[in-house]
């Protein structure tokens, strides 16, 4: 069975992380990336099911939620994208767009 990749989790930011002002701030970048993945057709049926439930305290972005292409994008760019994200403003997805263009 292939190992599941956990790209990110809500709890790693709130309440476990430092500098995160609250659950809404933790939720913001997940909602952005889920919208972006959905908008580009990169979610699996399971990913769409999770997305429809919304981002809650148990939310995790995992490899089984995204297509093969989506996994290539996230593997290549997710950590780098987080390096462009702050808790106090709406995330910009241009880096993800660029990564998707590279992945093809």
């Amino acid at each position, binding site marked *: 069975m292939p190992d599941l990749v956990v790209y990110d989790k809500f709890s790693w930011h709130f*309440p476990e992380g430092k500098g995160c002002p609250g659950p809404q701030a933790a939720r913001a970048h997940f909602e952005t990336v889920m919208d972006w993945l959905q908008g580009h057709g990169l979610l699996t049926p399971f990913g769409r099911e999770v997305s429809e439930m919304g981002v809650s305290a148990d939310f995790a972005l*995992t490899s089984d939620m995204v297509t093969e292409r989506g996994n290539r994008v996230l*593997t290549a760019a997710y950590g780098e994208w987080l*390096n462009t994200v702050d808790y106090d403003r709406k995330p910009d997805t241009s880096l993800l767009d660029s990564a998707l263009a590279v992945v093809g």
Partner: protein
Amino acid sequence: MPVVGTALESVQKVLKGKAPALAESQASAATEKAAAKTFVPDTLALSARARGAASASGAQRVYWRDAQSLVRKTQVEINREVGADREALALTHLKRQFPQSQGFVVLPQAYLRDSAGKILKDAVSGEARRVDFVVFKHRSVVKSLEITSKTASKVEQMAKEERIRENGGNYILHPETGALIHFPERLHTKVWRLD
């Protein structure tokens, strides 16, 4: 913005196989536990901040550098990295304690489901419950774990889990076969607190 340029280079390196993928970095982090990561302020960013320089959006962004790799990071990425390292450690430990050769399967991020396989939501919060690690053998769960930091409260999540389980959320789904794995009523999720 310079960081985007660096990021794109990184993307290209990963795609060319010249840099480790995330899963690999998680695994290696687990085996190199001893070295707890430390982050130091990015002095260039701080000096820019002191001069009152603003980013293009008008807000300040504070960067940190991984003391070992000197890679520039935001607090958001640092929090992700620390959390991933913590869970990678737990996964390594569980795989050692419950070896695949003896028929155990360690499954990360398993949703609690009902007997029909549907993800069950808590009637109070309206949220589902995704358990950090579930270990099962044959068709039965033998261990369930929530991994967290030394101080984070898990009271609400654990209460939510109990409510879901009382309402029949006593199954998880085998990711390959689609079979339902039973979560015995007497078994409860334990919280592991790691640095």
